[in-house]
Each structure stands twice: as structure tokens, then as C-alpha cells.
């Protein structure tokens, strides 16, 4: 008798499960059809770093102090500066990051004395070469400007 009870109860639990799934067929899908429609990126999203463009200078404020380079745990950043006549400080002339080593810790952004570094919202980075992860931030800034 207990066995029959088990069978009936078990069968009922199966039907309850099927009821759960069949109801979903008519529910709207949750899929975001990515290349056609994109999710809103969170404001805090951490892509690779890029230069903040300051309105007063019209460009970045990187003084090539190298703090970011020193703080980077994985040697992602290579920055070189040169003194120009117009500015009394050094200015970055070369700023390369190898994004493929980055762990997105944000130490460079936090420690940047001039707050010129920020996270980009870039997430579509698929490429055909291993070296496509190397990004020239100055060039990137110029292009976006």
C-alpha cells in the first residue's frame, strides 16, 4: 500500500515539475539578443584603462610619473614621457598597455596622481592576433577626440 502511495506521490511531483516548465513556454524570453541589442553597461564597468579627456586641456593629464607602472601587479603598462616646451611638466608621449596581462584590479586608476586614467566601457575586444591586446592609449584618445 505504501508503494502505491509512493507511486502516486512521485507521479504527482513529476506532474508538478512539468507544470513549472510548461508555464515558461508562454513567458517572455529573458535573452538579450546581443549583437542586435546590447545590455546597458554598468557605470562602474571595468574595461581596459583609457585616458580621461579633460575639458580644460582638451587632452589627457598624464605626466608620465610612472606610478601606474609601478603599482601594476603584472607589468601591463609601459609609459614614456618627454618634456615639451609648452608644458613645464613631463607629458606622456607613449602609453601602451598590454591588456592581455591585465587583471582589472584598478590600482593604476586609484593611484594615478592626476586622475587621468579611467576604465573604458570596452568589452568587444575579440581579435585574430595575440598582440591585438596591446593598446596605444594616446592613439585611442586621439581617435575618440
Amino acid at each position, binding site marked *: 500500500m505504501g508503494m502505491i502511495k509512493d507511486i502516486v506521490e512521485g507521479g504527482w511531483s513529476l506532474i508538478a515539475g512539468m507544470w513549472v516548465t510548461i508555464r515558461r513556454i508562454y513567458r517572455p*524570453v*529573458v*535573452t*538579450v*539578443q*546581443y*549583437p*542586435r541589442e*546590447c*545590455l546597458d553597461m554598468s557605470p562602474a564597468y571595468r574595461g*581596459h584603462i583609457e585616458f580621461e579627456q579633460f575639458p580644460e586641456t582638451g587632452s589627457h593629464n598624464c605626466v608620465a610619473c610612472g606610478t601606474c607602472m609601478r603599482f601594476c*601587479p*603584472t607589468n601591463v603598462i609601459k609609459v614614456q614621457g618627454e618634456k615639451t616646451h609648452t608644458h613645464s611638466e613631463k607629458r606622456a608621449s607613449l602609453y601602451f598597455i*598590454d*591588456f*592581455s*596581462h*591585465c*587583471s*582589472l584590479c584598478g590600482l593604476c586608476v586609484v593611484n594615478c596622481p592626476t586622475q587621468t586614467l579611467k576604465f573604458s566601457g*570596452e*568589452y*568587444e*575586444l*575579440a*581579435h*585574430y*592576433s*595575440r598582440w*591585438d*591586446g*596591446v*593598446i*596605444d592609449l594616446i*592613439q*585611442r584618445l586621439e*581617435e575618440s577626440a
Partner: protein
Amino acid sequence: MAEKEIAPGARVQLAVVEEVLNLCRANSLWPMTFGLACCAIEMMAAGASRFDLDRFGAGVFRPSPRQSDLMIVAGTISKKMAPIIVTLWEQMPAPKWCIAMGNCAISGGPFEYDGQYAIVPGTDLILPVDVYVPGCPPRPEGLIQGFLALEDLITKGEKRNVLRRFKRKIVKGR
């Protein structure tokens, strides 16, 4: 775009047949169920309801390498794991492709430092990689972008993928 011989050593090679086959291959990439570390979770997320790789016909995760077309190296390759990955790669039937997903798979990522003894710094040292998806871990969108890039690689150009009804966003600047 890198030219790659898609089907090495087919006994009969007809341009038309290859064209059709490549179109089909591009739209039916079955990845191998295979994850190494953090990126594997994002790979699962890409296959899950929100992002749904199945829309592109790439949602059939096959557990056996014999039935899969694509190896997604998702995560850090340890030296202990490297020979296994090579074995699995060789056990996949041609034509096959490889996506290096995440920074660890591309270059060892944050784990490549002076004195590192345990990992292989980069999938390209052991396998021919077709598409690199940087990120730590890349968002599922990034992986989908990688899939689309791979499809374009297989059909030799987005325009020749006649089944594609949207435009892939190509990041410029590099």
C-alpha cells in the same frame, strides 16, 4: 584577416563545395564542454538564457572532442594541463578551431610573473589559436563577439556569410 586552410587534406576539393561547407561550419560551431577556470563560468553564462549562444547555432556543447568543432580555452593553462589540452585538440576531427578566451589563455594574464612555475603563458604556445577574446574574464558579449569573429574567419569575410542578417561590430583602432 588571417587566411587559414579550413579543411586540410580533403580528398576532393571543389571550390563550391568548400564554400557551402564553410558557410555551414561557420553557422554550426559546436564547442567542447571544457573549462579551465573563471572564464568557464562566463562561457556557461554565454550559453545560458541571458545571452544564449544557441541563437547562432553554437549552443550545442558536446562533451566529447570527437563531436566538437571548437575548443574554447577558457582559463589558465597549467603546465600539468597543457599536454591534456593538446591531446584533446588532436582528438578533435578536422576542421577545428580554437578560441583563447580570457587573458590567462591569451598570455598567462595576471599569473605570468617572474618566477612563475606552474602555467603555460599563452595558448598559442601549444595550439593554433584562431580568435583571441581578451578580458579577465571577458563578458559573455565578448565571447559572442569572438564567435562572430570566428564565423567571419571561417567564411573568409562577413559578406560571404550569407546567412548572417546583422552586422558584426568591429572594434576599430588597432
